[in-house]
């Protein structure tokens, strides 16, 4: 008896869908072909004829692939984005905020490092926890079938949100200062932006990304070895 699953995988190899979605389609179609083949064999058809007849019932594989892709692609992209980016990203952000608050409550003082007249604040215990948070974001996004770009974006989501807050905060504070009549020095603003950008965005972002990349490498390898074993 032919390996129907392998056959389906081979015939639909160009189906550009998520791994999980493709797996389900392969399983479903292989089960159909297997049942059809078994029924033909039970009717008394020789094995070779049963295989030929089953394959004839399948129809045009290219047409099938095109139609499935067209139907599945039409599914609301927002639904996928919520599961692949927003949920893992927001969870990573909530976890990083909760850990930062816990670390501060436990009395861990941030370390200040002076670099070229700038004082950069690092919260070391929090930074050490961030790779795990990045890993959680990546793992959840990967499970939802996120692409490499999406899972890594989910891992660094907390710093993206923080960057957005920073970018909003500075023009707002500049406008408030202008309204209140005080002349803000642009160099001071730039220095604060640089210090906070390094301490709260760049370094935490790197820590989150490190965890994300590690998990993606681990999870991605597992997925591809699973695919090889089947196909």
């Amino acid at each position, binding site marked *: 008896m032919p390996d129907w699953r392998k056959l389906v995988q081979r015939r639909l190899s160009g189906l550009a869908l998520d791994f999980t979605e493709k797996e389900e389609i392969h399983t479903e179609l292989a*089960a159909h072909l297997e049942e059809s083949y078994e029924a033909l064999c039970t009717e008394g058809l020789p094995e070779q004829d049963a295989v030929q007849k089953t394959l004839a019932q399948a129809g*045009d594989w290219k047409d*099938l692939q095109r139609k499935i892709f067209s139907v599945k692609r039409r599914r609301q992209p927002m639904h996928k984005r919520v599961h692949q980016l927003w949920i893992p990203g927001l969870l990573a952000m909530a976890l990083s905020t909760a850990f930062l608050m816990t670390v501060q409550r436990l009395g861990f003082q941030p370390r200040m490092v002076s670099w070229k007249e700038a004082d950069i604040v690092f919260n070391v215990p929090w930074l050490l926890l961030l790779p795990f948070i990045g890993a959680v974001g990546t793992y959840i996004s990967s499970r939802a079938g996120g692409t490499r770009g999406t899972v890594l974006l989910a891992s660094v989501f907390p710093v993206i949100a923080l960057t957005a807050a920073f970018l909003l905060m500075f023009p707002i504070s500049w406008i408030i200062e202008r309204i209140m009549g005080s002349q803000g020095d642009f160099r001071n603003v730039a220095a604060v932006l640089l210090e906070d950008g390094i301490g709260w965005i760049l370094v935490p972002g790197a820590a989150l990304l490190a965890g994300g990349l590690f998990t993606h490498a681990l999870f991605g390898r597992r997925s591809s070895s699973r695919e090889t074993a089947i196909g």
Partner: protein
Amino acid sequence: MIGTGIKRGTAELAILSVLEEGPLHGYEMARRIEEQTKGALRFTLAALYPMLYRMEQRGWIRGAWETSQSGRRKRCYRLTPAGKKKLSPLRKEWAELFGALKRLTKVAHA
């Protein structure tokens, strides 16, 4: 030549009608339709599954994975309340269309 819309419409009606009798997986569905229409309606994989996925997206049917006694995983489809609601106007539309065609061919032959 039968248009795509008519072909799709008859296929949808056939699927909804067999699922009204109870939940079925793809192969059973195709077989049941072929038997009940005495071979007049036959589904290839290329016709059946994209149709099932489309109908599932529209909320007319719902698929769920089941494991048979032989350990084979199958996706079993059942009619949703929205599918049941869709079935009766669809039947009426097709009955009207076939009635009209019958009358037309009778007039043409007379």
